[in-house]
């Protein structure tokens, strides 16, 4: 069996890329919807966006999108370590976005644990977790914007 089938895998655009875009879109929207802003600023009045004002709906959507993002991150990371690392390596922009996603996942998972019955984190830890999650999200959005504007890729071929 060929141990290095990475040439046919790569980190190119494909259906997974669009799944990633979709997940990020829903996770960002449902994440911001945890704050009482969409109803206040009439965004939830736009046809098709009424769900943004329903806290329990956005809570569940955020969880589903988070589970999909975690699965995708583990898929891509496994793919990279299994084979792609022989052909490509992460760029600085890739490290930055990857690091921010890992930070978002860790702080998010801790918040999910906090939400379980019987889990009682100290109020100060909860405040820090909430702030860290929001700050990571904002930094991630800036990194996304920067990467889109300057056409920064996650990986580059090993020369």
């Amino acid at each position, binding site marked *: *069996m*060929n*141990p290095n*089938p990475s040439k*046919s*895998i790569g980190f190119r655009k494909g259906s997974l890329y669009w799944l990633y875009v979709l997940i990020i879109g829903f996770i960002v929207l449902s994440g911001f919807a*945890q*704050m*009482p802003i969409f109803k*206040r*600023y*009439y965004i939830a009045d736009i046809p098709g966006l009424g769900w943004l004002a329903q*806290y*329990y709906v956005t*809570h*569940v959507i955020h*969880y*589903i999108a*988070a*589970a*999909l993002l*975690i*699965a*995708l*991150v*583990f*898929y*891509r*990371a*496994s*793919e990279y370590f*299994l*084979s792609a690392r022989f052909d490509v390596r992460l760029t600085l922009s890739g490290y930055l976005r990857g690091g921010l996603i890992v930070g978002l996942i860790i702080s998010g*998972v801790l918040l*999910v*644990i*906090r*939400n*379980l*019955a*019987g889990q*009682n984190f100290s*109020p100060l830890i*909860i*405040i820090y*977790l*909430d702030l860290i999650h929001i700050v990571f999200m904002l930094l991630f959005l800036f990194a996304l914007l920067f990467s889109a504007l300057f056409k920064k890729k996650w990986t580059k071929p090993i020369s």
Partner: protein
Amino acid sequence: MPQSISRRSFLKGGAAACALAAAGIPSEGSAENPAQLATLLDISKCIGCGACVEACREINAPKFPEPKKPFPAMYPQRVKVEDWSDKREESERLTPYNWLYIQSALVNYEGKDYNLTLPRRCMHCVNPPCVKLCPWGAAKQLPNGISRLDSDLCLGGAKCKEVCPWSIPQRQTGTGLYLDILPSLVGNGVMYKCDRCYDRVAQGKLPACVEVCPEKVQEIGPREEILRKAHALAKEKKGYIYGEHENGGTNTLYVSPVPFEVLNKAIETGSGKPHLKKVADSMKQGNNLATAMILAPLAGVAAAFGNFYRKAKKNDRGEKNESQSV
């Protein structure tokens, strides 16, 4: 902050309260012990005297808002000012200045007339959505099960009220942290609700409403013990329990001689007047999805290995074909 109840309230409460006050909270559920404390309300004992309401207002008066007027103009205009500061005496519903009120129900059940009164306030859910879903961490659950809203951190977005199955928290505009940020664009005051006298409980004292009641309607203790007592009381009086399973379980348990479905039709409900309907666990759906998050990394790794194996096999076949054709 007054930590003692005035002579007027105490006399209204009567000597019966004295013995209860002296007893304090069972040590098992004190501030040092993380066991969740629950209250049991035997509503067949409640005479609707309002001593609990008065004591609550008196003991919590220093926590009440003192809004600055005029209020900042709110944008967009759909954001309504909620001002209760000129209606502080309102005691027929929940407000930022009235965290407990008496609900009454006149019902006929199985041929018997009942005139029942219930003290209503925050249920202090075992897994409170107001606390868990607050985006700022302004709502807190103490290890003893008390959920409270931190008036120094709350921005008054009222999410806690929307996610509360009973819409308990009430907003006062013109006070709190939002005034120091972007008062016209973000926030709208501070949310207020019963904090079950967390400061008194931390000192081993009883919540004011429990202490002052002349009929000993309420008692407080570790949830397991209170649940046992609620079941024993319901069995003895052939009564019904509310709060054991509502919203996944609460730390306020009512025992009534009349089913709560019947009571719910008889009480006045609406803004600041909570219902007595059955309530499913609001956090359950989200928390069930937490399981998916445990499986997500496994699914991702398994898919990558599957894909790797499939492509490696395909490459192998390709190489074999190439060598055969050569």
